């Protein structure tokens, strides 16, 4: 008979490995760079702040990858969003709340078009979102070719600089100048974590969320079981573009500017985060919590390289590459083992 105690399936095992890896990596960083402030809570919070936009992107990417698709347009969407906000404030004189709303609407429309092409016309997601990538990057330059810094919207500036300090002074420390500091996060981090929570609950507890897994597990079966596969697919891409726009706003709050080359390759970071977090490229298996840890691992690598001080940033790419290979091989092994069990 079947082993009923088999609670750790490959799905959450990959997640566990990711979490363990992150913890080990972080503890390693703390041990090696204790003198450079790596042990401070603020260092960890900085990782969150730096990657708030990426966390939103990775959440959306996870949903799309769970359906078995991919969305490589999100990095360019972020750039376009930043440019719309920057130019909107500085050149058109719009208020930032209206612009943020506009950016979200643009994200929805963008996702609708991409999702419709993929779900209803059955065009390869890679091709469609590649077109989307070029289009968004192109539009960024069409809006403005120069770098535009955001300086003249007090609300947006305030939002960007707003510190949310840790309650009860948790993790307080004294900086080099001897001034006591209370660790803080920015608004973008709160937004990003809310996005992760929302997507997590959505994937686990709503019909739409479960349908995403069904579509990724076996599209034909999902159809035959009476699910509207096209609609689910469409919605996943709309969600991805929408979350990319939220990510774009978070990103813009960090950079406070719009440039044409901004967020280049951010979609790849989102994909690698999802993969490292245990999402299978073939769809059906994965978890947004894993993707969050994927982002944290990527962020920690960058932070470690940065803290070392002597290494060029390219080393972060190499470590990411090695990790990515490790996880893909691991996933392949799981799939093989599963097949063997079946046969």
């Amino acid at each position, binding site marked *: *008979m*079947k082993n*009923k105690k*088999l609670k750790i*399936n490959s*799905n959450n095992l990959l997640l566990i490995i990711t979490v363990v890896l992150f913890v080990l990596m972080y503890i390693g960083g703390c041990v090696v760079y204790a003198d450079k402030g790596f042990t401070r809570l603020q260092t960890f919070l900085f990782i969150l702040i730096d990657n708030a936009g990426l966390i939103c992107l990775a959440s959306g990417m996870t949903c799309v990858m769970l359906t078995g698709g991919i969305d490589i347009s999100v990095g360019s969407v972020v750039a376009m969003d930043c440019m719309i906000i920057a130019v909107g404030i500085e050149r058109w004189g719009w208020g930032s709340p209206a612009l943020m709303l506009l950016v979200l609407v643009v994200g929805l429309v963008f996702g609708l078009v991409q999702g419709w092409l993929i779900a209803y016309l059955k065009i390869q997601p890679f091709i469609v979102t590649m077109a989307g990538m070029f289009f968004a990057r192109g539009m960024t330059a069409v809006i403005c070719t120069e770098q535009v810094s955001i300086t003249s919207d007090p609300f947006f500036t305030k939002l960007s600089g707003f510190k949310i300090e840790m309650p009860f002074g948790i993790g307080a420390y004294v900086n080099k100048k001897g001034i006591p500091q209370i660790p803080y996060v920015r608004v973008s981090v709160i937004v990003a974590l809310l996005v992760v929570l929302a997507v997590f*609950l959505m994937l686990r*507890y*709503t*019909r739409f*969320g*479960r*349908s995403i*897994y*069904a579509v*990724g*597990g*076996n599209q*034909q*079966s*999902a*159809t*035959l*079981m*009476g*699910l509207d596969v096209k609609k689910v697919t469409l919605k996943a891409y709309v969600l991805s573009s929408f979350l990319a726009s939220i990510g774009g706003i978070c990103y813009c709050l960090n950079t406070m500017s719009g440039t044409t080359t901004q967020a280049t390759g951010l979609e790849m970071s989102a994909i690698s985060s999802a993969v490292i977090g245990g999402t299978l490229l073939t769809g*059906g*298996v994965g978890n947004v919590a894993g993707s969050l840890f994927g982002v944290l691992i990527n962020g920690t690598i960058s932070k470690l390289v940065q803290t070392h001080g002597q290494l060029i940033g390219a080393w972060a790419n190499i470590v990411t590459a090695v990790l990515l290979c490790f996880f893909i091989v691991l996933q392949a092994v799981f799939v093989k083992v*599963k097949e063997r069990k*079946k046969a």
Partner: protein
Amino acid sequence: MEKNIVLTMRGICMTFPGVKALDNVDFTLRKGEIRALMGENGAGKSTLIKCLTGVNKFEAGEIHVDGIEGPIVNKDTLDAQKKGISTVYQEVNLCPNLSVAENLYIGREPLTKIGTVNRRKMNEMAAQLMRDLDLDIEVTQNLENYSLALQQMIAIARAVDMKSKVLILDEPTSSLDDHEVSLLFKMMRRLREQGVGIVFVTHFLEQVYEVCDGITVLRNGTLVGEYTVEELPRVKLVAAMMGKDFDDLASIKPEGEKDMSHAPLEIEAKGLGHAGKIKPFNLDIHKGEVVGLTGLLGSGRSELARVIYGADRAQSGTLKVDGKEVNIKSPLDAMNLGMGLLPDDRKAEGIIGDLSVRENIILAMQAKLGIFKRIPMAKQIEIADQYIEMLSIKTATRETLIKQLSGGNQQKVILARWLATNPDFLVLDEPTRGIDIGTKTEIQKLVIKLADEGKSLIFISSEVEEMLRTCNRLAVLRDGEKVGELNADEMSQEGVMKAIAGGGANG
């Protein structure tokens, strides 16, 4: 609608581009009845099922379901399910990455007050359903942790729980072992008692007589008849499927057959098999002998040949070619051992449409030599011309693209391709299907001529007469298993039919 009838289909017509897939087909199913839908591959079983479930759009005809006024047309599978028609397919159509409970309820999960999925209630409902059906399954486990048979049961459980009046089982047993099949049958009988009408699509004759009440036979997209099991003993069923009237079968005795059993062996297969395709079999083929493989379409004829040739690698057994034990890993190994295979699906596996007749002819020869030893053009032309003449291939020039040729001539080109490699052993899978009588006769003559030259052949055809004319010996296949052989003196239409229908036949 007559009482107790749960489903009627009347005059269903459906055309695929260029093919009349269903022509005026009727189908009737009663409450608490298990009805087998029989027919050879391509007879229209699946098409009919798909018309019923809304996957295919039929052009004419009506479908009536008990309890619904007027004829129904299902937009899609979901629509059919809502009207009480559920289907369990051959391939388990569930999601392996979801839990058993989710597979049972996805799309109709119990919800909480705020509209989220109530996982606890869903699991409880699923567990209850499993208990009702006597299945020992932990519903929170992922589906992929269970065997195919159990997955199939779960698929059926899903269908049953949707209060289906009509349950369609599309070849559910093809990947199950005997024990699992008996489990499935137990469940089917249980559902029959509950009044569910079951359509059982299968090509396993034994199973039909084990579990079914009625049989509907299709052939070439038309209805042959609707029978009760008692009316249609095995041999008559086979005759109906193959389009022969059993009572009229003349005992045509082929003439001039040679007994080749004293010639040296070319092929000696012992226990060769490939799980799920062909059960282990023994087969000897002598030099200069034509062995026919007979059986219904889908009985494992092609599969047997493919295992010998290495197109499907044998998982068990040994093969001796010309007295030497060999290990064929791929078709190229087989070719180097002097074997050739003419596949039955020449469009998909045989011709390369955008290459010329000449290129198609020298293809296998070139493959055998390897790509670095190019055959000189003069030689290619010589070979091509030789076979075009020998097989009287009707083509404008030797450089004409093969896709411009007629089916029969394409077939000859592929035959030429293998003859050019000068094989000692050649498998011809349905070489005469879909070609005109004249060419058919030419190919039959050629087969006999090749055998006279000392080559060994496997000849596969759905036409019994043709087999009787060309073969020295027949191997009979049923349900993926070689079940016997017929020697020259046992070979007659009637004998072949009986052999195909199998032992225990009451006719």
